[in-house]
């Protein structure tokens, strides 16, 4: 009896949380679409997400592409299909690894800082102060971050794709001894527009999720420094999990037959 009640309670809490996030999302989208727009804030967030994440995302993409070439070579060598390395690298990077790795890195970098910043504003009553100065916190804080996340992550992933493929190329040429021309030819031979597009769609969704979780947890944080710390952790963890879940869902939509 006690056990069932506990399960029921957890389930209800879960549904309640989903309801709250949905409502938050609805309000946020409404404020994204209606004036006033804080263009300067959108710009600043875009810079923060798109430009300042470049080194982290670029480095991880580079090494991911490199290790991918190395691993698939060892695997394919067992049945003499070494020639497929270039194709495997480009498909894995554009379809899966580029968006997912960039998403997870940005979730750690940006999601955390959004939750910490907005959370601190919440517990020091700065969000209340915004309202008393006739400024809607959703418009001023949440909307610019959502717009920037949604638009900048695809660009970031495009760069990550290129760097990742380049990493594979480096290993392919200098370590595995492929002919550069053949490697490049194999890279583009089987690549379809849909592979890249699906990856960019994922990136847009992930960017939205990262900003949403950062803002949501920050906005609802309470209880001082400890509360802000918890909000930061929650933002990163929930964004990471949602990224993996949505990654599967979007792959299913695009490629399941």
């Amino acid at each position: 009896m006690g056990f069932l009640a506990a399960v029921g309670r957890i389930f209800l809490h879960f549904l309640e949380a989903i309801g709250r996030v949905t409502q938050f999302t609805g309000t946020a989208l409404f404020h994204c679409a209606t004036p006033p727009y804080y263009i300067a804030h959108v710009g600043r967030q875009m810079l923060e997400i798109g430009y300042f994440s470049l080194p982290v995302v670029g480095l991880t993409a580079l090494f991911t592409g490199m290790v991918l070439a190395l691993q698939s070579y060892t695997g394919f060598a067992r049945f003499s299909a070494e020639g497929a390395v270039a194709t495997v690298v480009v498909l894995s990077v554009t379809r899966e690894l580029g968006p997912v790795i960039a998403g997870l890195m940005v979730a750690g970098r940006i999601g955390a800082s959004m939750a910490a910043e907005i959370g601190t504003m919440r517990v020091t009553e700065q969000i209340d102060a915004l309202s008393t100065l006739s400024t809607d916190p959703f418009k001023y804080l949440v909307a610019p971050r959502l717009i920037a996340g949604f638009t900048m992550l695809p660009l970031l992933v495009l760069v990550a794709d290129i760097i990742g493929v380049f990493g594979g190329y480096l290993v392919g040429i200098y370590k595995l001894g492929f002919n550069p021309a053949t490697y490049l030819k194999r890279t583009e031979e089987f690549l379809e527009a849909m592979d890249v597009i699906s990856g960019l769609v994922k990136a847009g969704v992930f960017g939205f999720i990262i900003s949403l979780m950062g803002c949501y947890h920050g906005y609802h944080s309470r209880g001082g420094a400890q509360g802000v710390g918890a909000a930061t952790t929650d933002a990163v963890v929930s964004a990471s999990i949602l990224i993996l879940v949505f990654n599967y869902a979007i792959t299913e939509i695009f490629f399941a037959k």
Partner: protein
Amino acid sequence: MTENRPKIRIRGLVKRFGRKVVLNGVDLDIGYRESVVIIGGSGTGKSVMLKCILGLLAPEAGSIQVDGEEVVGAGRAVRERVSRKIGMLFQGAALFDSLSVWENVSFGLMQAEGMGRTEARKIAEEKLAAVGLGKEVAILSPAELSGGMKKRVGLARAIATNPEVIFFDEPTTGLDPIMSDVINDLVVKSVKELGATALSITHDMASARKIAHRIAMLHAGRIIWAGPVAAIDHVDNAYVDQFIHGRAEGPIKMEVRA
């Protein structure tokens, strides 16, 4: 025109946090261009009451009218219209730490009224001067200020748009006696010269005597006494008497366990 209708009218206001009842049927009128000071023990819900009027907290029951317009349960448009009339000094100042001091002060002017930066800065510097802060402070960031300076910047921000109603949550806490008196004068001046309605919270009885037309005491979730400032010294109410004389013995029991 509206002289006989109170600027703010509160009836039966109830606010709970979980099981804890903080406000339990508050009734209070604040007249047009009147300065009311709320006194009461720490944690009795004075700040919560202000936040209910501002619509930052949703009360469980009761009615709050500003200029005859109901705020409790009102839609966005009404809430926005009402919040435009009210300037608020938060107890913890609540300055935006990503903006400089002068941008904080002129935030309402630039955001809500669309004023240009040059003009807004000029007004911000005037308001800062009114709270005793010089031009060199204007470009600092809030993190570089002392507690009392933050409070004064918060005050300058609250009055910058010349609102019809101003809420001061402990305007003189953390200030030295001389600066406290400067701030008292500023509150008096806001009411007298700008024609504002003021609702202040303070623990400082000297300040209360100076700025209030009327004093109201909040205790156990209700306004237990309200009356003109001159009457405060001969009130036939043991609670008020204990509070204004700051005695540990009396009907108000502080929750201290030795």
